[in-house]
């Protein structure tokens, strides 16, 4: 069944998009991390123009994150104060990011920059996760005494540095006392990336909140989801307004697939061990990295390609 996407300007199989949405939803349900970082590259692989893929995924993330945030809010896992400060940074960063996309698209190198950032981010996250989960698996094979010694809990050093900065605040839910500049700057960095990559940034934000800011894991996830709803809403709005690249139809089909997939993923997740899940995710992320990296270094089959923003005509 073919469906015509009005903004992407192409006809594509409805079930292919639903299936990809479902697959990404399944993975995010299974791993409890964002699907956006997988979704955008997959959309590009099936021929959706990169800018439309990124913008429409942001739109889809609004929906995916809001259902998660809703659940966490009811469980009391959302630190609104922290979330809002990160959000302020996120909106600031997202606005810069969208302008950045505009300039890059005009220069014709959007795809290149996007792929480089992806390769770096995915390689880093995938590699770190792979090493960490492999260690956990090895450790569980060895003696438990060794395990205790091998798991040093490192004090977040950066957070100590930020405590001395002005604008100090108390964050009740997170149980933290730190400068507001800290979460703001992290929000800015992630906001820029969210616009560039069409991701909510959860896969960078959650580790940053846990390891850099020092928040409890569950509060980090809940707060992250809350701020992602607002950040990706802002990115969607900006993309729609500045670049006209949000394909609502595409976003809705993806959303349908991912919500169904997420439910199956959550069920499957209960049957696997944590480190097994993480190593599986690491392998997927690394495979994606290799594919994107090869795109950058192998001789392309087509040296000439259509650039975005054609003037006049059709």
């Amino acid at each position, binding site marked *: 069944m073919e*469906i015509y996407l*009005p*903004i992407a300007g192409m006809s594509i199989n409805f079930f292919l998009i639903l299936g990809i949405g479902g697959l990404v939803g399944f993975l995010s349900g299974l791993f409890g991390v964002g699907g956006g970082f997988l979704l955008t590259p997959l959309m590009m692989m099936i021929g959706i123009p990169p800018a439309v893929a990124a913008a429409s995924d942001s739109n889809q993330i609004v*929906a995916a994150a809001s259902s998660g945030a809703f659940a966490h809010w009811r469980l009391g896992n959302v630190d609104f104060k922290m979330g809002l400060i990160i959000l302020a940074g996120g909106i600031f960063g997202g606005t810069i990011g969208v302008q950045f996309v505009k300039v890059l698209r005009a220069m014709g190198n959007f795809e290149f920059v996007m792929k480089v950032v992806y390769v770096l981010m995915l390689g880093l996250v995938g590699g770190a996760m792979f090493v960490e989960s492999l260690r956990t698996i090895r450790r569980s094979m060895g003696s438990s005494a060794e395990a205790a010694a091998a798991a040093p809990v490192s004090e977040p050093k950066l957070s100590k540095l930020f405590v001395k900065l002005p604008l100090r605040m108390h964050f009740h839910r997170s149980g933290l006392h730190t400068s507001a500049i800290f979460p703001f700057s992290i929000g800015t960095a992630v906001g820029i990336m969210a616009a560039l990559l069409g991701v909510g940034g959860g896969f960078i934000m959650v580790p940053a909140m846990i390891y850099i800011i020092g928040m409890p894991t569950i509060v980090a996830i809940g707060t992250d989801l809350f701020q992602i709803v607002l950040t990706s809403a802002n990115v969607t*709005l900006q993309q729609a307004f500045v670049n006209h690249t949000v394909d609502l139809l595409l976003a809705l089909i993806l959303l349908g697939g991912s919500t169904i997939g997420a439910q199956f993923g959550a069920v499957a997740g209960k049957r696997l061990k944590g480190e097994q899940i993480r190593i599986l995710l690491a392998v997927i992320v690394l495979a994606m990295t290799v594919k994107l990296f090869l795109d950058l270094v192998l001789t392309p089959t087509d040296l*000439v390609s259509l650039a975005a923003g054609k003037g006049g005509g059709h």
Partner: protein
Amino acid sequence: MKRTVILLLVCCLGCFWGASALAVTPEAQQKVVTSASKNVVEIGLSYSGDRIFFFGVNPVPGSDVVIKLTAEKEEAVKLSMKGRVGPFWMTVKQYEVTGSPFIYKIHTNKPLDQIISKETAQELELGYDAVRYKMKMHLIRGESAPEDADVVWKGLLKIKERANLYNIVEDPKRLEVAEGKLFKHYFRFPAAATEGRYLVESYCFQNGQLVGYGKDVIQIKKVGLENWLTQTSKNQALFYGIMAVLIALGAGLLVGVIFRKGGHH
């Protein structure tokens, strides 16, 4: 005085030159009566291109038939050329190509070069050589190289042919001419053929001379939801953005309520 005479002479020569250059005027020929299976194609939700049948009567029985499909508007496209920068492949230059048709398809009942001369082909813009001759390209970014003209043309042709926007079929089976008089064929409009007016021109040639000409206009337009979404996203971008966000929020909260646990981000 002498000067004026020379000037006049030059002018006259110029006029003759101009007149001879326009020797082949399609509209002045006998009309090829044609009929299309439909003249309006609507892009709805399930649009994935369309096939339109054409029938025509050859005014000079036995003459050769050449049919051309183009878009009414010419397009300006920006093409990026990749090159090696260190270990990476990235866009190193961009060309703007103007004067090339958005869509270009030709059906003939035998090879084009056996029907008309190169000059006639160029004049009537029939065949890839004619398209290339008319196309203009200029560098927007990067440094030009002598082989660029060739690379850009081949690249554009590849993109267009792959999208099924350009093709030339020189086959009597594809363009049937029954008893030299009645011809029938179809054009496939690919999904990439977006809104606009398209021209289907039928040319009849006898011994390389144009003896008949006919023209059909096919209009493609988005309708219903497709049209509304496209128009809104362009003309009321802010409203469109807010709507997109609200729909996504609503859908997300609905799912959250239905599944209780809600989908993880």
